[in-house]
Each structure stands twice: as C-alpha cells, then as structure tokens.
C-alpha cells in the first residue's frame, strides 16, 4: 500500500469547523445513518471510508443539504444549518459521476457559480482562469466536457467547486470513475490543492488506499455508524474494532491465548491493543507485515501454499498444522526463496494487535 503521509493542515487557513451530531436517516426501515457524530477541524480533510451502503454518501449529502436527516444537527462555523437549503449552504461539491454542464466550456462551468453570486464578467474570468491554472487545465479552458478526458472533467469539476470559495468542500467518490493511474495522480493533486486553499473537506470513498493517502483523519463507517476516526497511521496500526481491522488493509485472524495484555501466537508473544478481548480462546488480528517467515522448521511450523510477487513487495501464504492460512509480507526479492510445499516457520514481529473473542 502506498501512503504519502499528509502534511498537517495549517490551522491558520481559511477553513471552518464542521460538526455533525447524532445524524439519523432511515430509508424504508433501514438506517443509512444511525446516530452519526463527526467533527471536522478548520482546514482539515477527513475521509469517510466504508463499504457500499454503509451511509458515507448519505452523510455527505446531508451535509450538502441534498438529503434531510430525520434527526440530528449539522453546524458549520458554529451556525446550525440543518434546515438551510442547499443553495444557501455555500458548499462546493464534486460528484462521483461526471457532472460538468455539457453545453458550457470548462471556463463557463467554472464561472457559473460566480455568475450566480453576481460577480462581474472580468472578476469571473480572472477567478476562473486562476482556478483552471490551479488544476492545470488553462489550455483546455475553451473545451466542452465531451472534449475532455474523465480525469480532466473531474479537475474542472474541482475548479468549479473551489471557484466560489466554499466554506466546505465535499468530494463524493470523485475518483471512482477513473482508471488506476489517473486516479492516483488526481488523488495527490486533490490533496495538494486542498492544502493550498485550506478549505475544510469531507472526502467520501470506498477505496482505503485513497483515504489513507490523502486524509488528515479517516472515519471508517459500517451500517450507518462510525467505527473509528483516526489519523491514517493510527487507524492502520491500532484498529479499535474487528471491522476496522478487517476493512483497512489485510489481516490474519489467528487463534491465540491472551493474558495480562499479551497474546501468545505463532510461538511468540505480542502486546494486544486497548479494548482487546482476554482469555485462552481469543482471535488476534495480525497484519501480514506483522509476521516473519523463514525457511526450515521452527516453533511455529507451516507449509507454503503460494508465493506471489506484487511489485513493491511479495506475499507468502503458508498453512499451519492446525489448518490456519497465514499471509506474510516479504521483500519482493525474497519471493523466489519460497515454493508451494516448502517447510517454513512463522513468528510474530512483535507489533501490537487487536484481540477479539473467538
């Protein structure tokens, strides 16, 4: 997983605090939001991450005013905007589907929000030029949406959303329609621009790599609730719930005995994270990079099932005599040391892990 550590957001930026409190939204008896509470610091970029149907987009749409919560409140800069219509909320939004107005050029799209705000022509043109420059599309200013690639369209959409100098920027899976390479480029660009303009931003995505790469903090959602909100590194290394451990990154579920804050697993002992279960019949959630594999016999023997080269690193899957399959991350140069059927032994590296009841 590539993860560029985001620079901490400058608190002196023009961002504004956002507070969602106990938001609840039910569709046909199913709670899309089940008491969601989330705070965004001024200028912060928070990513909401979760599987389809977890409620992340509903939360963003409630903040935009495109959905009305059944209960709960939304405050921006200390002002309650729960009942304020969308067009009075002063929020810029980039959508998952391409949303440029097809009968307008890129420049006209960017100018549109300014025109609605009564800005004169020269001011509009100057600001649109500035925004298109910011997203690197000045040379395409006079092109229509159908003349732009998907990535370019989303850049223009970002420029359009930022042109009005919104209090809050909302990004609803803006990269999901793009191919992998463009997605990675634009993801980094979004972060660069967000840091430059300092707008408080809520970024919704189902792609964990995307969330971990761009956000100051990531909120993991499941069935309408926030499971955990934390900086990317903390979320990855210290998941607070089994769902977060499972959803973010790869995880091995290994039977273990937990006593006195330590888990006995794979012939070694590792500390367990706060909130872990205790007892002789527990399961400890260990990352592939939290385990080492070596050829030959040892205290925790296993048999290689597969060894794969994954580019930046390699992965060995080995089966223990108890039938547990363990995924281990190895250096990409070491992959050739292992062949299916080889005898190996495993050991924990010693990183703390979450233990849950079996």
């Amino acid at each position, binding site marked *: 997983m590539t993860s560029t550590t985001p620079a901490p957001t400058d608190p002196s930026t023009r961002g504004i605090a956002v507070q969602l409190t106990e938001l609840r939204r039910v569709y046909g008896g199913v709670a899309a939001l089940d008491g969601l509470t989330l705070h965004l610091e001024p200028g912060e970029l928070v990513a909401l991450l979760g599987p389809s149907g977890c409620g992340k987009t509903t939360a963003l749409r409630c903040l935009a005013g495109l959905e009305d919560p059944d209960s709960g409140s939304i405050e921006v800069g200390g002002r309650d905007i729960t009942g304020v219509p969308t067009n009075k909320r002063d929020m810029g939004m980039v959508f998952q589907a391409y949303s440029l107005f097809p009968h307008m050029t890129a420049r006209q799209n960017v100018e549109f929000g300014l025109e609605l705000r009564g800005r004169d022509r020269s001011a509009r043109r100057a600001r649109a030029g500035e925004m298109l420059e910011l997203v690197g599309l000045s040379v395409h200013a006079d092109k229509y949406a159908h003349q732009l690639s998907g990535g370019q369209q989303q850049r223009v959409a970002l420029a*359009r959303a930022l042109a009005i100098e919104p209090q809050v920027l909302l990004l609803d899976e803006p990269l999901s329609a793009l191919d992998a390479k463009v997605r990675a480029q634009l993801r980094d660009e979004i972060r660069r621009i967000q840091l430059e303009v300092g707008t408080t931003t809520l970024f919704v995505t189902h792609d964990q790599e995307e969330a971990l790469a761009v956000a100051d903090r990531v909120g993991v959602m499941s069935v309408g609730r926030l499971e955990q909100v934390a900086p990317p590194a903390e979320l990855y290394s210290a998941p607070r719930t089994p769902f977060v451990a499972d959803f973010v990154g790869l995880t091995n579920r290994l039977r273990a005995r937990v006593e006195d804050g330590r888990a006995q697993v794979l012939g070694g002992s590792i500390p367990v994270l706060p909130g872990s279960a205790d007892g002789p019949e527990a399961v400890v959630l260990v990352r592939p990079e939290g385990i080492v594999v070596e050829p030959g016999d040892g205290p925790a023997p296993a048999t290689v099932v597969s060894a794969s080269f994954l580019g930046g690193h390699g992965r060995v899957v080995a089966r223990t005599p108890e039938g547990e399959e363990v995924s281990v991350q190895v250096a990409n140069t070491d992959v050739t040391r292992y062949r299916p059927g080889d005898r190996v032994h495993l050991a924990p590296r010693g990183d703390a892990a979450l233990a849950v009841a079996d």
Partner: protein
Amino acid sequence: MVPFFAYTTVFLIVPTAVVVIGAFLDADNRFTLGNLEALTEPSVVRGLTQSVILSAVTSLVGALVGGVLAYAVSTAREGSVTRRFFTSLCGVLAQFGGVALAFAFIASFSAQGLLSVLLGRVGLGTGSGLWLYEWDRGLVLVYLYFQIPLMLIVFLPAVEGLRPQWREATETLGGTTWTYWRRVAGPILMPSFVGAALLLFTNAFSAYSTAKALVSQANPLLPLQIGSSLSSEVILGQENAGKAMALEMVLVVAVVMVLYAWLDRRAGRWMR
C-alpha cells in the same frame, strides 16, 4: 447493410428519383419547366401555406404538451407500471392515424357523434359538428391526437438523459430550481426539443390518409392536391404537375430533416 440499402433504394431513392425526374418532364417525356408553373397557382400556394400552418401549429402544440408529458412520465420510477403503461400507450397512439382515427373522431365529435350528443344533453353542445371537417380546426385537433404521443416517445430519452448531478451541482453552486431549468436543463434539452418538433412537423406535413378521410369536398392541403392530381380522371396529364408539387414537399422535408440531423448530433454529443 445490404438489406438496408435494398430497402432504402426501393422505398426512398427510386420514388424520389421518379418524383424529381417526373417534375421536369411533360406528357411526351420531354424536358420542361412547365410543371413548376403549377406551383405558382393560387390553389397550390394556398395548399402549401395551409399545410405549413397546420404542421407548424400541431408540431408546436404537440411539442409543448408532449414535452411536459414526457417530463411527467420521466419522474415515474424506471420500470414502474405507470411508466411502461404510458410509453406503450403513446407508442400505439402515435401510429394511430388514417381512416380509423378519422372515423373515431367522426363517431365522437360529428353532429350525431357520441360525445357531441352527450355534451348537447348537458348544455355544452358543439354546434353542427362541421368544424371537424375544416382543415384549421378539425384537422388540428385530429393531428394532435397522434402528434402529442409521438412527441412523448421521441423526447422522453432526452429528458431521461438529464443527469441528477446537473441539478445538484446547480444547487450547490447557489442556483434555484428556476436557475436549473433556465440555465442548465433548458439549454441542454433545447436541441432535442426543437429536433423533435421538426420531426412532428414532417409527420404532419406528409400525413395524407387522415386528412383525406375527413376532408372530402376540397383539397386544402398539399398532400391532398398531389393525390388528386395523380388520380384525377377529370383533368388528364396532371401527373407530372403532381410530381412537381411532390418535389416541393420533398424539398421542405429535406430542409427540415437536415436541421433535425444537425440538432440531433449536437444533442447527442451533450448527452454522452
């Protein structure tokens, strides 16, 4: 492609060639411009004018009413019974012309028509019912019967092509519903709307059998005059004058269809 070319050759290219060539031949098959003089006769000019007026009025009213209905249908859930019912119904009604339609209106609105009698009993009589046989009143109503459903069918895909994100983007940028329709949806739909209206125009302009079944005493429309000149047993040798009138129709329809194709291409680009 071969069946397509065979079909268009037999049913479009050959008849058009017959019309074009025949318009410039006399009774002895010699070249002449004499047939074109028939186009300047007051009755022919009147026929063309009235055909254009009838087509323009029914296409405009049909486009407006059908456009609103298309939007209403598009708000129904995709695949819902309401939506399927209306699109299927309009598919049938748009093709329901000719003698059967004329008879339906005569049975309903003529002096002794069912609706006329019922309305007469409650003091809302429709008079002698002769208006039904006039090109500028009766035919307008009858033509609208198939023009409105045709508009719904032709225009519905364009309305369905409006992306919800366009409305939401307008709102987040500070616009109202009125802003959305005036600045976004309206301009996006306009080429499709005008294109569909042009299609309605040609549909009415070339309609023959409905008018023929209702209007039997005179030939107030160009298609009826062409039919009359081709089948007249009173004045012989009028076929080629009829072909000149048909050429006139072909030219009008060709201009309209070129405009339609241009608008359709433009709308298609936007809706991709």
